Every structure is written in structure tokens, then in C-alpha cells.
């Protein structure tokens, strides 16, 4: 696996975020560095958005010994909101030369700054500002260092359908990134047919901003070195490490995280030692990695 100039149309039933998570792991253990163009929906309300992926997920790999910068990149060429999509991203993933390195990642630190991107496609550019304004309103009582960038796309770069959303990232003093994202757009085509009679209600921008901010705060409240969305990926990365002990701290275990833990046990044979830390209401997980090596790499 690997190589350049790959192209894949992710379809319109799920957004690109759904495909990215497994792809990143496959890419790390590939034969050659991967460069792939994915087409489809970039932001929707169900899956993690590509913005979050770019700002948060890629940085997680740093903890496991994948150097960020050379070869690890995600570019959003076009945005696409459901139902018509039309987004396009360029993903670059390097390969690991031999193994990942085990992570000892339990210090969450304190939130020192909040960054974010609010986007809109094929709607009034004013909407972005309204979203940002609302989100900032909530953060004002916590921290002054808040920057939310706006990204307004039109024409081809804006994809096929109108929509807007926001992705927020909180960075802590120890470099952990905690994210939350929301997006709104029209319903999918098939869903529309069912409810033709009533027009679907969309969340107004102000409400959306507040909602995103609240979600981020809730993630912060939960604690852990990653947010709830990234638990699964974190566990998989831990399990793919060499047979050293990895120790990570997460907030409350999510159903997806639990399902991932089970899958890891079934497929990789790695069992986690899970202990709650009642002081902070978080969960500490320890595991001995499965010792997977990049077998497909060619040795010279």
C-alpha cells in the first residue's frame, strides 16, 4: 500500500472524516508514503470534520513517534457540505520506518488557548461571523486567548450545497489538543424525500456557536489527554506500539472507545488495564503494545 496520486470518491452517505481514521493507520504501515485525494462531504454533523482532523488528530501521531511536518499533512482544497458534497482534500501520510514508540501520556495540563475555524459554504459570509461571535461569548468567562478563523468558500471551492459549521480546539499547557465540532446543512436527499411536507429546521448560527463552545467546555470538563472523539484512535495507536507499556488518560469512556477496545482485544490480542482515577474523574489505561512492525516496507 502507498504511493502517490491516488484518488477516492467517498460517496455521499458518510463524510470524509469517517474514512480518514482507518486510512491514517493503514497509511502509517504502508510500503510507501501515501498521498491521496478524497472527494465527498468534508463537514457534517455526524462524523468528525476534516478541520478537526487537521488541527487535532494529526498532532496525536506526534506522541507516538511519527514526525509531524514532513509528509504528514492535510489540505482542504474544497469544502463540501451534505447533501451534495463536492469537497476535496489532499491527505499525505508518511510511513513509520519500523515501529511507533510507546506513549506515556497522562498529563492533561491546563487549557492555555483556544483556536478554531468556522466555515461556510454557499451562504452569506456574515453567518461565519455570527457563529464566531456566539462562541467567543461563552469562552470570554474562561480565557482571553481565543482565536477563531473564518473560512468562507464560494463557487467550486464551496462544493455543492450550502452549510456552515465550526471546529474548536483547546490547547493545554502540556500540548494536548481537545476538540469539538459542529456543522449544519440541509438534510440528505433521501431523508428529504421522507419529510417533504415540512421544511427541515436548521440551527441558527448563534445557537450553533454556543453549542460548539459548550461541547468543547464539556470535553474540557471531562479531562483526559484527548477528547471523546479521539479515544478510539488513541487506543489503536497504543495497541500498535512495540511491547512497551503505554499509559494514557482519557475522560469517560465512550461507546465507540469501548467497542474499539474490544476490537483491539479480538484482533491484536492486546488487553488494556483500565483504572478509574476518581480524583479527576478520568480513566487511566495501560497496555503493552502488540509489537507490530511495518512489515511491508522494503529494506535496502
Amino acid at each position: 500500500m502507498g504511493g502517490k496520486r491516488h484518488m477516492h470518491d467517498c460517496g455521499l452517505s458518510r463524510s470524509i472524516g469517517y474514512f480518514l481514521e482507518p486510512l491514517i493507520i493503514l497509511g502509517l504501515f504502508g510500503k510507501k508514503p501515501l498521498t491521496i485525494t478524497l472527494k465527498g462531504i468534508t463537514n457534517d454533523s455526524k462524523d468528525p470534520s476534516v478541520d478537526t482532523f487537521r488541527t487535532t488528530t494529526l498532532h496525536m501521531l506526534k506522541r507516538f513517534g511519527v514526525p509531524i511536518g514532513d509528509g504528514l499533512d492535510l489540505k482542504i482544497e474544497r469544502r463540501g457540505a451534505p447533501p451534495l458534497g463536492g469537497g476535496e482534500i489532499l491527505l499525505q501520510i508518511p510511513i513509520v520506518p519500523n515501529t511507533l514508540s510507546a506513549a506515556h501520556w497522562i498529563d492533561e495540563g491546563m487549557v492555555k488557548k483556544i483556536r478554531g475555524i468556522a466555515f461556510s459554504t454557499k451562504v452569506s459570509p456574515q453567518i461565519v461571523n455570527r457563529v464566531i461571535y456566539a462562541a467567543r461569548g461563552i469562552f470570554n468567562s474562561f480565557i482571553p486567548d481565543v482565536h477563531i478563523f473564518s473560512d468562507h468558500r464560494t463557487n467550486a471551492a464551496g462544493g455543492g450545497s450550502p452549510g456552515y459549521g465550526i471546529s474548536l480546539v483547546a490547547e493545554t499547557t502540556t500540548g494536548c489538543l481537545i476538540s469539538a465540532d459542529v456543522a449544519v446543512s440541509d438534510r440528505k436527499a433521501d431523508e428529504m424525500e421522507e419529510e417533504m411536507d415540512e421544511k427541515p429546521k436548521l440551527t441558527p448560527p448563534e445557537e450553533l456557536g454556543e453549542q460548539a463552545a459548550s461541547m468543547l467546555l464539556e470535553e474540557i470538563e471531562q479531562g483526559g489527554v484527548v477528547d471523546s472523539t479521539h479515544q478510539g484512535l488513541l487506543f489503536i495507536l497504543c495497541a500498535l506500539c512495540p511491547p512497551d507499556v503505554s499509559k494514557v488518560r482519557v475522560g469517560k469512556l465512550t461507546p465507540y472507545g469501548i467497542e474499539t477496545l474490544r476490537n483491539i482485544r479480538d484482533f491484536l490480542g492486546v488487553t488494556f488495564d483500565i483504572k478509574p482515577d476518581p480524583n479527576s474523574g478520568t480513566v487511566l489505561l495501560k497496555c503493552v503494545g502488540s509489537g507490530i512492525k511495518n512489515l511491508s516496507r522494503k529494506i535496502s
Partner: protein
Amino acid sequence: MAKESGGSEQAHKAHRQHKSGASSKKGKKGKNKGGDGSGADQKKNPKAFAFTSSTKAKKLQSRTAEIEQRRLHMPVMDRSIGEPPPFVVVVQGPPQVGKSLLIKCLVKYYTKHNLPEVRGPITLVSGKHRRVQFVECPNDINGMIDAAKIADLALLLIDGSYGFEMSVIYGTFLLFIMVESQKPRETFEFLNIMQVHGFPKVMGVLTHLDGFKDVKKLRKTKQRLKHRFWAEIMHGAKLFYLSGLIHGKYVKREVHNLARFISVIKPTPLTWRMAHPYLLIDRFEDTTPPHRVLTDKKCDRNIILYGYLRGCNMKKGSKVHITGVGDFSLAGMSSLADPCPLPSAAKKKGLRDKEKLFYAPMSGLGDLLYDKDAVYININDHFVQFSKTDGDNDMASTKGKDHDVGQVMVKNLQATKFSIDERLDQSFINIFGRTPPVLALNYNDGENDERQIDIEDQNQGDDQELSEKKRAVVECDTDEDSNDNEEVSEKEAGQARQSCELREKVEIGDGRIRRRAISSNFTDDVEEEEGDESSDDEDERVDNHEQLSDDSYYLEETDKDEDSEDEAVNSSKWKESLIARTLARRGVNLIQLVYGQPVSNQASAVSDSSESEQSDDEDFFKPKGQANKGIDDKSSFDDINAEDCSKFVKLELKDWHARDLIESIRDRFVTGDWSKAAKRGQDANDNGEEGDDEGAYDYIEDLETGEVYNGGVGADSHEEDKTGAGAEAEERRRKKLALRAKFDAEYPFSTFLSDEEEKETENKSHGDKPKEGGFFDKLKEEMELRKQLNMMELNEMDEEIRVEVEGFRTGTYLRLEVHDVPYEMVEYFDPHHPLLVGGIGLGEENVGCMQATVKRHRWHKKVLKTRDPIIVSIGWRRFQTVPIYALEDQNGRHRMLKYTPEHMHCLAMFWGPLAPPKSGVLAVQSLSNNQATFRITATGYVQEFNHATKIMKKIKLVGYPYKIFKKTALIKDMFTSDLEIARFEGAAIRTVSGVRGQVKKAVKANLGNRPKKKGEKVKEGIARCTFEDRILMSDIVFLRAWTQVEIPQFYNPVTTSLQPRDQSWRGMKTTAELRRENNVPIPYNKDSVYKPIKRLPRKFNPLVIPPKLQKELPFKTKPKAPLKIKRPTLDQKRAVIMEPHEKKLLTLVQSLRTLHNEKKRKRELEKEKKRKANEKEKAKTEEVLKKRRREERKERYRREDKEQRRTRRKIEA
């Protein structure tokens, strides 16, 4: 004269030293050694050796730096914790060289026991920190391959009277000619096998030296063999000499010395072995139920394998490869007590006699056999006095009066029909009303793990455990004065009692009786396993019941201690343990929530028990604050399969405008209170250490009594502060530990120093040590830190969780249960052949196409042919496969080769179970023993897995002109159809004469491609091509193309363990073998035969310019025919007369030349004579050699024939 001499002092003659000879030299040498300053004397002028130029200095410096760097190796992380497994010493050598005798002598030296026969691995304790396992390497190539894969040290036994080889030097090549026997072949093959599969430590041992009568000859031989050995391994490799036999044993002193050498050798870390768990099987049992075997002799068997775990940790549920059999998933896996434990670490010198243990079940030694749940004691028949025999009644009647009390008691015990625990079963005591009566249980649950012995046994085992549980119940009820060690003592008591109870069981039918002693620490294991596997309700209920009793037991304790007012050290201790237990239980709970069924039900029935979710004591010990959490998690389980989505969307969001909510997470921001946040972080750092979690479990409410246990809140806060400061200290401590470990690794003897001294040396070493590669040091330090961290984290875990998370540690004695093994394995099991069980890594069970770099072995006489099957050994496996050899062209194309290059690496692509890149590949063509040549055909390593690689081979399409227009020609016979032409449109073509061209299109009928006769079909496959010049009808046109070669998807595991060992394994045959068998000649193609190329000188016709053209040419270019001159010219006519001086010169030269020619002629003649004589001589020796070879061949054939007849007889028998 005499007087004179008497008066004055007698003048002694001065000592005259020898000025020459051996003794004078000796003296000088001694002096030089003695005087330190003499070195300076030698160098009279030190300036002469100083650097004179800066470039030279720089060169020298860079050279030393380079040597230094070359010495360094990438450090390998050693992840093993705890006692290392025994050190495997493989003793290898040709037959009749004294392998078994050496092992016997070594065993005698270590244990003072005489070993009658060497069968299978022999484990023994060789020192306070060291165990050794001796394995004799069998003499067939399969055995050698397996032995090389497990050896930590190989002792190569060499017959001194024979040596390695008879090497005859032809030109520059060292050829191997084996005269008389094939003795040295095995040694060299073994060395090569080891080189491929990671080179362990090697030591040579020279035997049969007593055959030499001449001392000088002996010395010479030793010297020669030593140098040959060095050439093969490395300069300075250790070669040991065993000078001879005394009373049929090697000399004691020499064995002692050898043992000391063995004891200091450290195993080399080998990448493959560090990454894979493996066991050398030292005990083998067939546990198929006998009735199954009786009904079907060839039914699949269940076997149990025992051995020390090496390499890396092994997790439950991993797959293994049994060499010579195949891949299996383990039906059961458990750790057993070490049968050959290291002595306690008490400070003393040497080993006590009691600790000189050894363990060799395959050799039939060692009277104790430990199984998972039983210990078998072999008692010789004449020692048996108390066992019940058939004639027991008679004995009782005759000797009844002589019995003393003890004997009677023993006899009575034997006479009882029910054991104590069975009686206890019947007298049932119920503590809690709600528990179901255990008597109603059905003991015969088929899920049980006990299958191994037989059904009867199984029942007994069940009874046993049940009864033990029962006893626990009874005891906690009856024991009034319980102290904190109660639980332990109770366990011990149970153990003691059980070990007294010997249950009789006739095991084997061959007249021997095996008694089975059951001890409770093994029963624990059974329960663990059972908990893992059984899904029976009843089992669970038993657990519940018992666990309940357990809990109640602790409650009582709690109450008591609550009453006692003084907070003594004792009580705080138990509190700690209680907290730890509750904590552990919570941990287990969360693990259970995640992983569904209990991870391991173990915690052994008595000490700790797992809560089942349904049981009514679910929140028995649950802090109030956390009560809801589990339920929360549980509720989220239900919709797990709703949609696969990593984003966790909460439906209800809190209103973050609220003041109190804001305050609640205020400290999570840098704008908040840093000290509070820091505390939170620190707790994180050392969670699980002593007191930090106490806060959470401050309030533990006892639901039954309604009492609340309120932990020391005040103390808690203190401790928290302490831990806060302690986090850094902890980090520092860990670093220090790492440094120390690193230091220990470098200077192994520092452990014997006292702590103070050690510290000092440590400091010193870090101050003084010259900086050797900062990067290297840093890497090592990081690894050590990592290891310390791992150890710390793992030690924090509970034992059973640790096993689950980490797997079984290296060095544990494992018992592996494998089901459905072909019956041949049991039938033909031979303890002389080492049986290796290797763990299979992730992705290694897949089958696919591998690309390996291989090189024909220089001692193998032939090159290898593509598609001729070879047997390769990669990783743990051996399999036969069909390779395709290739070379990579400059443009990256893989081009097929028909044969491997003679002295070059090439690529080999083959199909088979995948092995990770960099693992060694060893190729063998035939496994038979009766082959004179070197059997290793090629060596190499795996480069990558590549399913997409294409191997191409060249294909030339040949065509002939059909019709030629100016620069266009129609080409026939190149393609068979128009469709084919369409595929090749635009392809480059070339004629033999070098005219290049291009394929255009298929020719339609309207363009010169008309059928010759009417009604005939238009000929297909005629292409229109254009060329850069007009071609001739006599030209041949080529199209050069490439076609892909398919890699045959064939592999055949070598199953040598499934057949008699003396029979050689037969797989797919090579083409040559098949031809030979079926008398098929090699296909002959006339065109492929090389013929001498005849090139006739080309004759050109003279250039003729037509007269018409000539006329029009200007004079300059007109051909001018020269006039014929009939008479000789003046120049030709004149005579040359020499001067007298010139004449003289000429005659002199002439005479000299004649002389020289004559001399030359004579020399030639001489040479010819010599050559002839030489040839004669050569012919003579050739004759002798030929004769010798013939005799040798004869001898070999005779031997082979004999062997074949023997095997045939055996098979027939």
C-alpha cells in the same frame, strides 16, 4: 701454585652469558616484560614517532574514530524482566565424535549424577544465577536447523584425528573434497545454518586427541585446526581441547574448565528471537482420552507440551508453530512451578548440594513430574511398601500384629472409601440462606479443562476443587479469632492437608503405577482456567457463593478492627490492603464492563474474587460518589452497534452561562488556580501508589450492617502534599535506577560491591569516562529508562491483570495444550530431536509472495534453476516452495533468470507463509542424509512482501516481409490475428540489419493483402509497418516485448515430525530428478545449439560509373585510369652496394639472430619434454584419485543400500 692460590682470593671465572640461542632470547623477553621503563628505552627518539604533518594526524584520528564507530552496534532493547530462562547449550558434531559423552560428563560435573542416556533437553542449575539446558543436536539437517534456532551457545565438537576437511587448493579456490567420510560436512552446514538464523555464541571443542602419538604432530594439528576454525568464525574464537579419555570419561579438569567457560558466556541478543516467544519442549505428553485411541488408532490427538518460555512474553490465545508439524492455536496455556528453580538469593558462596537440581523428563530422570494440577512421583517398585496391592488382604492377615500405630493409620487411610473432602461434601453447612445448595451441582461439566488425564480423573479433580472451596466456607464460619494473616494460613493449611491426601490412580497399563498427589497451589490454576473457559452457570454460582462468603469474612474483620481504638501500625497496614483490594475490584469491574465476561475469574477462589454483574452484591463496596458511573457506562453499551461513528454526540448540553458550572472547571484553564490544577496533575502521575486514591474511597458503606467506614481524611490531605513533592523525586529515582542498570550492564561485577562503593564507582565512571558517541549513549539511556518505566507500570498491576495485559513472562515454565494434532506426531515422537514451539507474530500466519535476496552457497556445486523446488527455512518454519529467480534491471524491471548467477546475489520470489523483512532464508534442496555434497544450496534474507511485483521475461516476436513498398512493408507471421496487431500498434520493431521501424495497423484486404485464389479467406495477422529505410525481403523483423511470469502459488510444509526420523522427507521433485526417474532425455532444440559463427569476407563489386555519367563529370572527378608502364623504372632498377662497415654489422646481426633462434629452439624442446613428464605424473595421480573416489563411492553406496534396506525392513515391520 697452590700456595699462591691459598693466600690470595681465588678469582672465580665470570659467568658467561649465552649471546645466542633460545635461552638468551628468553632472558631478554623476561627483562622487557619486567621493566616498565624499558619500553621507553627502546624508543630512543620519541620525536621520531610524533606526528610530523597535520594531514597524517588527521588521518590517524579519523581512522581510530572509524574503528570506534564500527565497533558500536545499534543497541537492542532487552524487555525481559525477572529470572532468565535456562541457557541453551547445543552440542553438535559429526557422529561418533563424543557428543553424548560430553553432555554426560558435564552433567556429572554439575550434579554428581550419572546420566545413562541423553534424550531430550537436560536442564540443570549450574550456578547461583544460572541454569543451563543441554541439547544434543541430531545429525540430520532438519534437526540441525531446529537446534540452530534455539541455541544460545553451540559447542562444535570436532574430531581432532580427522579435522574439518581435506582442502586441496586449485588455483585460488578452496574446494571441498570429502575423502573417506562426510564427517566435517555437518560442522560446516551447522555453522552456515546458524549464520542465517542469527549467530549465537560458538565454541569449538576438539576431541579424539589421544590418537596422536607424536607430540609435535599434535601441536601442529591443533594449530592448523585452530586457524581453520578462526577463519570460519572469527579471529580468536575459543577452541577447546579435550585431550583424551580416562575410564571412558573426559578428563575431569578439562570438563571443569569447559564448564567454567560455559558459565561466563552471555547470550547474544538476536532480533528474531527477541521478537518471538518460543519454547524448547522438554516434556511431551499425549492426553487423548484412551477410549478414543482405542476406537480409532489414527484419531487426532491432544497433546501437552512443556518448556521454558524464551524470547519475549507470550500472550494467551496466540498461535504457535510446532516445527515439523505445523501451525496450531493453543487450547490451553498455563504457567507451572519451575521444575528446576534457581536457589534462593541468600548470600553465600557456591551452590549447596541440595540446590544442584536437574530436570530431564525425556531422559527419564528426575523423580518428580509436575503437572498443572498434580505432581507425579516415580517410585521404584522395591521402594513401594504401603501401596495397596492385590494381595493386600493376605499381607494384612499375616503381618497384622507387627504393624505399629503409624502403619495401621496409613492402612486405614487407604481403606477409606471416601476422602475427607468427599465427606465434607455430604455434610453441608449453609451460611447464607439465599445461596443455592451446592450439593445439587452436577460435577460432570464437560467444559472442564481437565480433559487431559481422563474422564475419571476429571471428576476427581472437580471434586477436589469443590471441596476445597467448601472448606474455605466452613473455615471462615468457624474460625473465631481471625488475624490478618488468617487468609494465608488458611490457604496453607488447605494445601498441606491436600498434599497429604494421595489419590491413587493407575495411569499406564504397562505394569507401572503412577500416583497422583494433588496440591492446592495447582488447583488454583485449575480454577483460573476454568473461569476462563467455562460458561456454565453452575460454575459461576459456585464462585458467587464462595465469594460471598469471602466478603462476609472480611466484613467481620472490619468490624473488629473498627472497634479497636488504637491506630496501630498493624491496623493501618490491613487498611491499606483493604483499600488496595477495593481498588483492584473496581479496576476489574471497569475491565469487565469493557471486555464483557470476566477477564480472568481467578484471584484464586480464596483471596480475591470477581464480582459478577448480576449478583446482588454489586455495589457492595462502592464509593457513594461514583455509584452512578458504572451504570452510565452500561447504559451506553446498548447502542454500541447503532452506528459506527467515532464522534460522541451528546444530546443534552449543559448551559455554560451558569456561574457554578463555570466555577467547576475554572481550574482547568491557565486563568484558574494553578496549584489546584497542579495537584490534579500530580495525582495523575502516581496514581495507584499508596494513598492518593484514598480520598475516593473514604466513604465505603457497608450495605448489610449500615455501617460506614470513614477513612482518615486528615491524613489523606497530608499524603497528597507529600506525593505532590514526590512526583519529581520519583522521576529522579527512576532515572537513577536506569543509570545504575546501565552501569551494571557494562560492569557486571559491580553487583558484588557494597552499595556505597557502587555509588562511588558510578559517579567516577560518569566523571571520567571519555565521551563515546553521544548519540549512542543517549539511545542506551533512553532504553534503560523505558525499561524501568515498563517495570514500574507492570509491577503496579495485579498479578492476574498483568498476565492478561503482558502475557506470560520469559523464563516461566509453561504448559501448552494443543488439540487435534495428527496422530503421527505422537506415534513417531523422538526425544532425540529437539522439538521447538515458536510463537507466530501478527501477520506471519498469512500466506503470500515474498521477495528474498539469495546467493548460491559457494560450496554447493551447481547453480539453482528457476521453478526447481527448494526447501527453505525462514523464521520457525521449514517449507518447500517453488522460487523464481530474478535480477533487477537498471530501469527497475525485475527480469527473470533461468538460473541463479554463480557468484552473485539475486532475487528469489516465492510463495509461502510470510516472514518479516530481514529474516534469514536458508535453502536446501534435499534433506536426505546419504548425500556426499554440501546440502545448503543458498542463503539470503527476506527483502519485502510484494504481491504486486511483476517478474518479466523477454519475448521476441519474429516476422518476415510479405510485401515491400518504399519504406513500408507488410510483415507476416509476427502476429496471429488482427486483434493481436491492434494490441501492438505503435510498437518498435527492428530488422536484423538494424533498420528500425514501427507497427502501424493490420492490413485490410483492399491493400495488397488479397487472397491468391478467389474464394480464399483473407489472411489474418499481417501488419503494416514502416521503417526508417527500405528493408529487404531477406530481412527478418523482430519485435522485442516483455511478458509477465506467474509465481507458482505452491508451498508445502516440511512435516518431518510426522514420519519416522530415519526416513528422509520427500516433497515435490525437481525436474532433473523426474527426468532421471522416468528416463526422459533433456529436450533438444536444434536452434538452441551454439555453432561456430562463420563470417566470410564480404566481396564488393567494383564501382562502375556509367560512361554517360563519366562524360558529364568535371575532369577533377572523372576516373583516371593510370597508364601501364611496362619497363621497370629507374628507381627500381638501381643496385644497392653496402659499405664494408655496414656489411660487417649486418653479418654480426645475422649471426646473433641465428644464435638466438637456436637457443630458443632448444628451450622449446626442453619445455616440451618437461610438460610431457608432468602430464605423465598428473595422469598417474589422477588415476590414484579416481580409484580412491571409486572406492569411496562404492563404500557410500554400500552404506546407503544397507540403510535403505534397514528402513525398508523397519517399515515393513
